[in-house]
């Protein structure tokens, strides 16, 4: 049984921060699609998000229903919800 702990909450917080920044960059790039600096920043944060999601799911199970990566067990409903410590 995988348990959520402080590390899990910390990972979620960092994920939330990175996803908010990505959302802001999306709005900016909608308005200024030619901005190379914004695009570089976007991809940098996209890489960071991928790494955070991978780390979270490896430790605590699927983050969304698309994160059921095990082919031998169904983890989505059996692992703690993000708000469960």
């Amino acid at each position, binding site marked *: 049984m995988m348990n959520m702990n402080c590390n899990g909450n910390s990972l979620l917080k*960092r994920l*939330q*921060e*990175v996803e908010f920044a990505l959302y802001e*960059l999306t*709005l900016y790039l*909608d*308005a*200024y699609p030619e901005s190379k600096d914004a695009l570089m*920043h976007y991809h940098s944060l996209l890489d960071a998000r991928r790494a955070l999601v991978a780390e979270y799911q490896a430790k605590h199970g699927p983050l969304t229903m698309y994160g059921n990566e095990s082919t031998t067990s169904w983890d989505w409903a059996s692992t703690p919800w993000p708000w469960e410590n």
Partner: protein
Amino acid sequence: MYNDRNRQNYHCARQMPTAARVASDIPRLDADQGGRRCDGSSPDHAQRGQVSNGHAGNGGCGRMGNGNGCANNSCGHAGNGRGCGNAENGAHRGWGLHDHPLAMVYSPYQHFRDTYTPDIALGRGTLFSELDLPFEGYHNKRNGGCAR
């Protein structure tokens, strides 16, 4: 059901700077008056900080002859005491904006600079330090709704 004008509105909204989009539905105003700037043909219009509502000569509100856009309570929601200098009711008496004409909006070009780190951005509610503008209009008459 979408027609050409709906599509133009949508296109225009996607082209607006973040600041303007958050502040109001400025793109809709532009599109209603012919969709200028939606095609990107004159971006310097916004860079110069000019009023883009199509009524720049009369104080920002059509059909007003007095130039201040507010005096006759016939401009939008002037009677609620917010945003108009002649408010006779309401405790805030115009939020300290007595000398500002109604609905004068602009959208300068935003530059990609001075971004917050993600942890700060989430706390401040914006990635862009230039848009980190708490609303303090009542206490900051000189700068209107934003304190810097």
